[in-house]
């Protein structure tokens, strides 16, 4: 299994849990479906923490991990990054859109909808 897929599943577990989890807890949840080394989960969580998408808190003896943003917040931030125009109006070379930019008012509305939660899609 690719590392990217594993990262995504670990994130999913953290989002679903709703509370900070230890490496052990994440490992337990993921091992329900397949064999997975504890150290692999630890590595993945460490990588995600380095990339600042999860936060690491030291409680008692163990580190606990929590998502830095809710899934909805992260989706909203990503949409905003993908669709908002560059500040000085120069078309940003980083992404290529199929059809131009999105209507800013529609964008704002969509971001708001995404922040409130899954929008029935």
């Amino acid at each position, binding site marked *: 299994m690719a590392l990217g897929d594993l990262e*995504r599943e670990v994130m999913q577990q953290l989002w679903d849990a709703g509370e900070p989890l230890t490496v052990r807890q994440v490992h337990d949840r993921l091992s329900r479906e397949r064999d997975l080394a504890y150290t692999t989960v630890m590595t993945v969580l460490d990588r995600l923490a380095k990339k600042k998408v999860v936060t690491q808190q030291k409680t008692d003896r163990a580190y606990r991990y929590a998502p830095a943003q809710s899934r909805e917040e992260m989706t909203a931030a990503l949409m905003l990054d993908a669709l908002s125009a560059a500040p000085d109006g*120069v078309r940003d070379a980083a992404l290529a859109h199929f059809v*131009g930019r*999105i209507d800013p008012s529609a964008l704002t509305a969509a971001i708001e909808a995404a922040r409130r939660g899954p929008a029935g899609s």
Partner: protein
Amino acid sequence: MTALLLGALGLTLSLVVPGSLAAARWPARAPAAAVALWQSITLTGILCALGVVLAGPQELVEELGSGKPAGAAALVAALVVAALIIVRLLVSLAGVTYRSRTRRARHRLLVDLLDDAERHGELPAEVPEGLRVLDGPLPFAYCLPGRSPRVVLSGGALRVLDRAQVAAVIAHEQAHLRHRHDLVMESFTAFHRAVPRPLRSRVPLDAVHLLLEMVADDAARRRCGAAPLRSALAVLGDAVGPDGPRPGDSGSRDAARPGGPGSRDAAQPGGAGARRRGGPGEAGVRDPGGAEDGGGAGAERRQRIDRLDGPDPRSSMWTVAATLMAVGLLVLPTVIVVVPWLDRALSAWPL
């Protein structure tokens, strides 16, 4: 003399040529070659600047020796400006490259974490590697270029497009990725930003952007046919970019700006879009992003849709002609530098 000649050529290429090339209609018939011609025009302009730097000092000495202060002053000015342009170009290229690399890396990380493709059965039978689905009602599609590229579709896009249209959109985006259109856009963006603000023109940037879209459209058309691509353009375009003015949009745009990636230039004064307002909305002279982005994108989309009507508009005659022009232009500065030298060398030849 060489320096002044090169300077004149450079000025012609940067001030006169872009306007007429952007207004011309033939580039739509040979978009890839037209992109090459734009690159050649830009590169030749830069070569001219370099030529002025290189030929300037020697001619400056000659001018000083013969005691013509006006000519000498002109050459000094040309030299300073040319050196400045080259330094700015390099700095700008490094900046644009670095910014888009970091932004893409972060964007790729997040889009991989949020990918929702497994839940979407309406995707084509063979889902290409690197396809990601972002959950959300807004219909849009884009690609994330780089060494490990992604094509991103929103859940909203999958809802409004049928299978054939989705395949056409993916083929379009993959053409962008395969031909590394990002590198072309980056180089033009870097060039644009390197030019001092009062002299900046969006004309090449917008023209090249439209041409690259046409190149990708042609590739998608070859693979999936014109009809699904055309209808996908219409459907997604209607959803994201209604034409015409929208009330209070610059305000909402500012409010929507995140503290996230891409906002480090946000210190610039607002209303940048409004200041550049006023260009005619016709082909190639579209308005900048910001206030009238929807209008510019709308005009661009209409041109692309019209182009997909009827038979393949590409013409090999124009392709050959544009390619020849591009090559010829690139050679011109060299000729200007070499011919006087050759002349002198030949006259010194003992015969």
